[in-house]
């Protein structure tokens, strides 16, 4: 084994370990956070008995789920029934592989007692694999999760689960289109689909939330639908389908669905942070773009975590605030609103970019702000259409008349 290969293997396995534990610890933390934040929103305490502030509650639940009895419905298809939770769990874990979680570390050249010389020349990118297909990989892998839902619903031989899985597959397939379309505009600005390039382009100009506000909106809403969270939790719909596709699942198989949901949420949050909020970029300074160092890595890693957590908290906040869509409303929103909007938006951004490029405007902050100015009126129109509550909320007092 050459020293370079040893170095590569060491770095790769360490990165896999870090990314995997980031997702898994993240899942535990986000479940705890969801319970505490929802408790905060609802004026109650939430779990506060296991460990400090109840932090170990999810671990305790994990132990409980490991030791509980596994039930198999009598008429279930045993192979598919067991395969389904696995198929939704694995993609959720895989998607984190291409997300950069910090600025690069410097390479090294050292000699260890038994292993010998280890060399890693050049900077170490802080992601498991800097794939040339970038976020297309994430879209592809997360959409595999729908198989888990479909198979769970089909194999359970339960009508609630069946309806839930039908809803789930229709929903996820529809919103994937809007999600992908929302990212096409970003592709136009970045030039390719790698996440490192996306971050570099944001460092050159501004965070893409400004030039691509509608794109972010499309992506965020689709992410909610893709992760099956309220207001789009139609595959589960506790009050209608009991718990939808995982009605028949118990113990660790249920836990895997549960963890997959939260892992997907982490992936979606990390995607939003990376693609639209600069990833590990520290705002208002170019210090973090300097040569690789350990200090820079830890600073940017912290910033990345903070951004990701901000989105996760937003996910939680939305879930505990909004009511649920009906199935046909969800499909209408997806097909009749999001997809046409995404198509129109691609046209708009492409045209603007073409005009800016032919006028010779350099890609940078000014370029971004011009695009932001293009987004503003569209945003206003969008939200005045979407905010039907404003119209109805004003009319509600007119709707109920009071007899003297």
């Amino acid at each position, binding site marked *: 084994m050459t020293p370079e290969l040893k170095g590569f293997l060491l770095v790769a396995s360490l990165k896999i370990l870090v990314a995997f534990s980031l997702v898994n610890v993240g899942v535990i933390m986000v479940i705890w956070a969801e319970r505490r934040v929802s408790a905060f929103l609802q004026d109650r305490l939430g779990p506060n008995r296991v460990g400090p502030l109840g932090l170990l509650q999810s671990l305790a639940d994990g132990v409980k789920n490991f030791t509980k009895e596994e039930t198999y419905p009598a008429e279930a298809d045993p192979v598919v029934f067991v395969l389904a939770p696995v198929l939704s769990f694995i993609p959720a874990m895989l998607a984190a592989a291409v997300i950069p979680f910090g600025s690069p570390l410097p390479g090294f050249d050292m000699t260890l007692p038994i292993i010998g010389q280890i060399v890693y020349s050049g900077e170490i990118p802080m992601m498991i694999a800097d794939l040339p297909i970038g976020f297309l990989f994430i879209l592809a892998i997360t959409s595999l999760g729908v198989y888990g839902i479909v198979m769970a619903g089909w194999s359970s031989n339960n009508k609630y689960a069946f309806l839930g899985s039908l809803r789930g597959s229709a929903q996820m397939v529809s919103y994937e289109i809007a999600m992908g379309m929302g990212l096409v505009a970003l592709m136009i600005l970045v030039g390719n689909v790698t996440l490192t390039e996306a971050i570099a382009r944001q460092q050159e100009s501004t965070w893409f939330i400004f030039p691509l506000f509608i794109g972010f909106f499309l992506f965020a809403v689709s992410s909610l639908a893709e992760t099956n969270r309220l207001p789009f939790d139609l595959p589960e719909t506790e009050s209608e389908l*009991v718990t939808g596709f995982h009605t028949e699942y118990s113990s660790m198989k249920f836990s895997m669905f549960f963890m997959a949901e939260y892992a997907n949420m982490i992936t979606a949050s990390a995607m939003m942070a990376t693609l639209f909020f600069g990833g590990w970029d520290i705002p208002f300074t170019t210090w973090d773009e300097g040569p690789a160092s350990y200090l820079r890595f830890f600073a940017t890693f912290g910033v990345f975590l903070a951004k990701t957590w901000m989105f996760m908290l937003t996910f939680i906040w939305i879930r505990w605030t*909004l009511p649920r869509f009906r199935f046909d409303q969800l499909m209408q929103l997806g097909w009749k609103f999001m997809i046409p909007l995404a198509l129109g938006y691609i046209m708009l951004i492409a045209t603007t970019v073409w005009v800016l490029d032919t006028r010779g405007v350099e890609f940078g902050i000014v370029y971004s702000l011009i695009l932001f100015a293009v987004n503003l009126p569209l945003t206003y129109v969008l939200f005045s259409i979407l905010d039907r*509550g404003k119209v109805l909320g004003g009319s509600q007092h007119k709707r*109920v008349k009071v*007899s003297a």
Partner: protein
Amino acid sequence: MSEKSTVEFELRTPGIDGQGNPTSHAVGLADDAPDLHSDHMLVNIGPQHPATHGVLRLVAELDGEVVVKLIPHLGYLHSGFEKLGEYRFYNQLIPLTDRMDYLAPMANNVGLALTAEKLMGIEITERCKVLRVIACEMSRIIAHLVWLGTTSIDIGAFTPFLWLFQEREKMYNLQEAWTGARLTTSVTRVGGMMADIPEGFEAGMRKFLLEFPKTLDEVDKILSGNGIWCGRTQGIGIMSAEEAVDYSLSGAMLRASGVPYDVRKDRPYLDYESYDFDIPLGEHGDVFDRYLVRFEEIRQSARILEQALDRLEDGPINVDDPRVILPPKSAAMSEMEAMIFHFKHVMEGVEAPVGEAFCSIEGAKGELGYYLVSDGSAKPVRWRVRPPAFINLAALPKMSEGHLLSDMIAINASIDIVMGEVDR
């Protein structure tokens, strides 16, 4: 007094034409759609299900997700209260009424006491009337808070439920201070009340009435103006005024359809005519209007409570008649006459003259009626309840068929059923 409007419509069976075929058809595939040889799916919802509000069982025939046919199955909580009542003294019926509409037990107690008093021809005291108004309106607020919370859960919003339950908890504390019980209050007696309100009750109630509109406003803000909430509730489960009357609906279900009928206004009891309050009316008869009507009713009930507290004067809570009212324990242990009455009350009960009486009040769910028949003994020979939730529930299939499964859940929630009352 409100201007009464009489609603007159021809009698017919809605939804069925002269040949006995249904007149409305479910939303289905277009006529030229290919025949896929698909069958309808029969889905059983309940009696154990998160959204059936107790042990209601619904059997739904689904075409895709569209409810083609819906049959509610009742009886999972049947307790035979009406038959049991035939073996009970009149005062012993009151604990049975607690267990019917267990979300508004005090209003049930009041209804039964009023009917028994009508049967016996008893005039209750002024203070007792005001206390009963307080009991009724407290019940209405509690029941509507629970309704609002559970409906928001059914439509997917969990948070308002817990906000409202905290307010309900405050109300329950007041109720507990008064009656000693949170659910089975048994607060009335024939001819009076079980107990007078305790010290601090009035101040506590005023504090509650001052504070809880804030929570209501918050819930109003989070739900009424929300596009998703409006989309889920508006135009769903419509009952026209005509249909609502045909189905004999009452309470908020009827008023949401625009029929101005409220027992408190139209056949006043307990001097309701002297209180200043409004009856909210809907226009469209959909789930959203029912929501708005009940929401406004909570506010109106708070108004009535304030007025009732203002006019609460010192005085006896029971009629001054030892044949009807149980003498106080201290008197029973020291006076001969009181002891005899005590003995007779406990062993023989209060005899009612031969006859029958029907009295209805505006309960939380609708018009709550009690019918008592007496043969001159201390026990009724027949006791019959007009349970508003049971009759309102009969409209569920009519409202749900042709809607999606999710809508059916929302419509079911909007009826505000309590299975204890439906099954009795």
